């Protein structure tokens, strides 16, 4: 088991991003769980720089796509172009062929493009005109969206949101952190070079070890009870799907590994639950109108306080 991964990664990201330790940690958990992340936040709160720093320190190839309403699927996945020299069509790879793809402002792209990306996320391959090509491994998508935009956007439907392992909301920094950010930029001190923490072989070994983390039958039963509790929760009109619970157990495994354990404990599940489940459940409108619930995250946390974990 490789130890100190969390500290090593956070130390590197901390060279360029101030006050985003928890978010960086969640990116790491998602990566080790082989999942994708949706980052939500207003512009200018270091979503892009965080993703870029993360890719650099993990030694991953990084590409960024700025999503726009006039985008086509082939702008992302690539397509066939005619090679005049060989007089035949050849497949030209799009920017999706990378290790870490930053899909900036995913909700500005039309549903066809969103759907093509989400297919790539799910299958880790793309198909163009019957020609299928595998994406590089590891493959991770970090998508961003601005919650304040309403004009010219295509909100992701529930079935597409369900494909993201985590949704992480980035709030504004507190005043002390904001002061540090301003000071850093004034002094031009944020030019610290992010160093690669792992080589490709070590990274592959770590991903393999995470998959070996033990999940006991009782923990699995606990997950089933939690899923059932979200489905019977009257403040929710849509509970957690089986895929959500699979994603939750993978995230818990990654969290356990980062904590230096080779087995999952209930706290691993609890620590990532809001990020994995809140964007997949749907609030019941009557509960919203009567003011008995504020956010899906709150309901998820309430469910966790009611269901007894194995002790």
């Amino acid at each position, binding site marked *: 088991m490789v130890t100190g991964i969390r500290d090593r990664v956070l130390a590197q990201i901390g060279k360029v991003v101030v006050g985003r330790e928890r978010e960086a940690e969640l990116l790491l958990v998602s990566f080790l769980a082989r999942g994708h992340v949706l980052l939500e936040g207003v512009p200018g709160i270091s979503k892009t720089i965080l993703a870029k720093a993360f890719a650099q320190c993990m030694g991953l190839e990084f590409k960024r796509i700025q999503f726009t309403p006039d985008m086509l699927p082939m702008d992302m996945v690539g397509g066939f172009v005619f090679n005049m020299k060989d007089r035949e069509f050849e497949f030209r790879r799009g920017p999706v062929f990378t290790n870490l793809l930053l899909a900036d402002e995913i909700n500005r792209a039309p549903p066809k493009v969103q759907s093509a990306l989400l297919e790539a996320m799910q299958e880790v391959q793309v198909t163009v005109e019957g020609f299928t090509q595998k994406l590089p491994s590891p493959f991770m998508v970090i998508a961003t969206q601005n919650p304040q935009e309403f004009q010219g956007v295509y909100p992701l439907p529930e079935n597409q949101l369900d494909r993201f392992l985590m949704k992480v909301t980035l709030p504004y920094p507190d005043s002390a952190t904001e002061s540090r950010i301003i000071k850093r930029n004034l002094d031009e001190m944020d030019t610290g070079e992010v160093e690669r923490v792992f080589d490709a072989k070590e990274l592959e070994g770590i991903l393999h070890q995470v998959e070996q983390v033990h999940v*006991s039958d009782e923990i699995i039963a606990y997950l089933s009870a939690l899923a059932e509790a979200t489905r019977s929760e009257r403040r929710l009109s849509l509970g957690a799907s089986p895929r959500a619970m699979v994603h939750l157990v993978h995230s818990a495994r990654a969290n356990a590994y980062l904590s230096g354990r080779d087995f*999952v*404990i209930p706290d691993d599940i*609890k620590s990532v639950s809001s990020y994995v489940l809140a964007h997949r459940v749907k609030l019941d409108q009557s509960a919203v109108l009567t003011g008995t619930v504020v956010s899906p995250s709150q309901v998820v946390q309430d469910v966790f306080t009611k269901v007894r974990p194995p*002790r």
Partner: protein
Amino acid sequence: MVFVLLGAGLVALRRIRPPVFQDVQGAFQDLDMSITKFVPDMPPGFSWREAMDRLKGTGMKVDWSRMESSLAEYEAFRYGGSEMPKGGKEEVAKVSMEIRRRIIGYRNKR
């Protein structure tokens, strides 16, 4: 009357005497019962670590570093399939007893 008082005293003493357990699993089961019964604002979904964090703030005279290592060993057994740890039950029993002693003391004061 004297016998009744003596009997009540013995019962009270028995309730706050450090319990003896065969193994650490029994000690943790007893601690679970103590927390569930005597810490009413602890939600049913509490985990061991959440309970430890909560109890640490109460100022109990417990060696928390020993308690944490007992818990880590118990977790490895409970969730990780390791062998049951041989030691550690004394510290767990002490926490359980402290909870009861405090609650009983609080009730008597009232």
